[in-house]
């Protein structure tokens, strides 16, 4: 029921702390391998461990390398130095299991010619063909139905993306990243392009999904209040080069709801985060 307790008992079982996402002295330099171009240090000496079941947000000014950090965790980008591991396996090694990672982008990536259901099933088709997952198709079809109701899209399975609003499309993308049941969910400003009301609504929904599915979430945002509201910890990155400037523990009670934003503790934490953020500029 209470996620914190569950998480605690799990770590006790395994004795050593079980990090799901782990950045170990990671540097990312763009243009490091070319002589002609000037190289740009995007991230420097990043040490960050996210525990199993934890919700960690990364905030920072634009251009501080937030997305780069996430893309390295997703295996889209290589670290120049250091290592990025998911479940103890380097993401660039062949042993890395793609089915362990789900990625949600800022903009919905639903394919226009596929129905909502077929969009959600796309990763299953690809991963099955490549032998990365081996459950029956019917298992995932049932799961797609469950996800549709989990994200509040019952009855929209046969609709096409252009028949849905931006917020609904983003729910499709979230379902798509959950269909193969990854242990880690990487989210890159997933609600950044939505209006404030839809954003608040989806924040609550994300917390509910997180609670029900027990994922480990690494969440990128530039919205400090959103970060406080959602997270167990908020990581503040400094700009150029991106370094971990602060890590703030968010000790707000869970489960959180609409009223959480009105509590004194929320306001305090938000003010503290804003202060940290301001000192960077």
């Amino acid at each position, binding site marked *: 029921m209470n996620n914190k307790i569950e998480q605690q008992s799990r770590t006790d079982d395994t004795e050593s702390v079980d990090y799901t996402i782990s950045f170990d002295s990671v540097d990312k330099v763009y243009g490091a391998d070319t002589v002609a171009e000037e190289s740009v240090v995007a991230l420097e000496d990043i040490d960050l461990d996210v525990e199993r079941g934890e919700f960690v947000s990364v905030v920072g000014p634009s251009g501080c390398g937030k997305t780069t950090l996430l893309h390295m965790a997703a295996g889209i980008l290589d670290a120049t130095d250091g290592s990025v591991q998911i479940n103890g396996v380097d993401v660039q090694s062949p042993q890395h299991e793609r089915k362990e990672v789900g990625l949600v*982008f*800022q903009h919905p990536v639903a394919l226009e010619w596929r129905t909502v259901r077929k969009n959600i099933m796309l990763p299953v088709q*690809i991963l099955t063909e*490549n032998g990365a997952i081996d459950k029956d198709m019917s298992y995932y079809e049932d799961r797609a139905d469950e996800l549709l109701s989990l994200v509040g899209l019952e009855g929209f399975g046969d609709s096409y993306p252009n028949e849905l609003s931006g917020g609904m499309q983003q729910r499709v993308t979230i379902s798509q990243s959950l269909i193969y049941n990854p242990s880690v969910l990487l989210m890159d400003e997933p609600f950044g392009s939505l209006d404030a009301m839809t954003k608040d609504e989806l924040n609550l929904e994300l917390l509910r999904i997180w609670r029900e599915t027990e994922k480990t979430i690494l969440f990128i945002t530039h919205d400090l209040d959103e970060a406080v509201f959602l997270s167990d910890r908020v990581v503040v990155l400094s700009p150029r080069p991106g370094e971990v400037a602060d890590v703030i523990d968010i000790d707000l009670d869970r489960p959180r709801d609409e009223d959480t934003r009105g509590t004194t503790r929320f306001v305090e934490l938000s003010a503290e985060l804003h202060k940290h953020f301001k000192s960077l500029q």
Partner: protein
Amino acid sequence: MIGSAVRKLGDGISGGGRFSIDSDRITRWTLSAFGLVLLIAFWEAVTTVLSLNPKYFPGPMGVVTELIRIWPAIVAALPNTLSAALVGYLLALTLSIVIAIPLVASDRLLNALMPFIIGTNTVPRIAMTPLVIYWVSFYSVSMLYLANYVMAVWVAFFPMLIAAIDGFRSIDEDTENMLEVYGATTWQEFKYVRFKNGLPFIFDGMKIGFVLAMIGAVVGEFVSGTFGIGSQAASAIGRTSIARAFAIVLVLGLISTGVVLIVYLIESKMIFWRESSIMGAE
């Protein structure tokens, strides 16, 4: 950049314009018909009022009369030209897609060949007609008509290739990253995203492509003199039968428009998720 080049080429041929079948299509079709009738009436009026010599400046009535008179000759000449244009077109289309796949799959290959592709696309390929005919005659004089097929392919291929390359490449970065996270192979990228995503570009290319294939086949006949509607037009002009030349051009135009319309109808059925454009230009 390449796409806009193709679209500009389309503008040059079709005059651009965007027609779509939706709520007010009837108004638009009525206006189009009205415009056409007005233009024909104006043409007829000019020739009558200025009492132009119909031998050199035939009016629409003269052209239609001539068309009816020479209809059997046109029907006899059409199959050769049409088969050169159609076969050349389908061959160019198939080649363009088959060749675009490895080019899009490998950035290196694309970078190595792009200067050649863009260069050849920019060259007035029609100017190569005598050379093509020379080479074909070298191979077999009795099969000189093959030159018309070669010309149709040669003229239509490059714009369609560029459209296909553009289309297959036009997936956004997030989608590309998503496919990478799932570990999609190059083939899976094509199968699940690139083919469907490229369709609007490919259909645009197809609309330009048929018009170009027709030009290739007709000019091939002009120069080679092999029997067909192109050589009929050339001989009509040679004998100052202007009305006859007009009648032939009219038939060619109607056929091209018909094929473009068919391509458009297939497109709007296949690409149901967005509005189609009747011309190869947006």
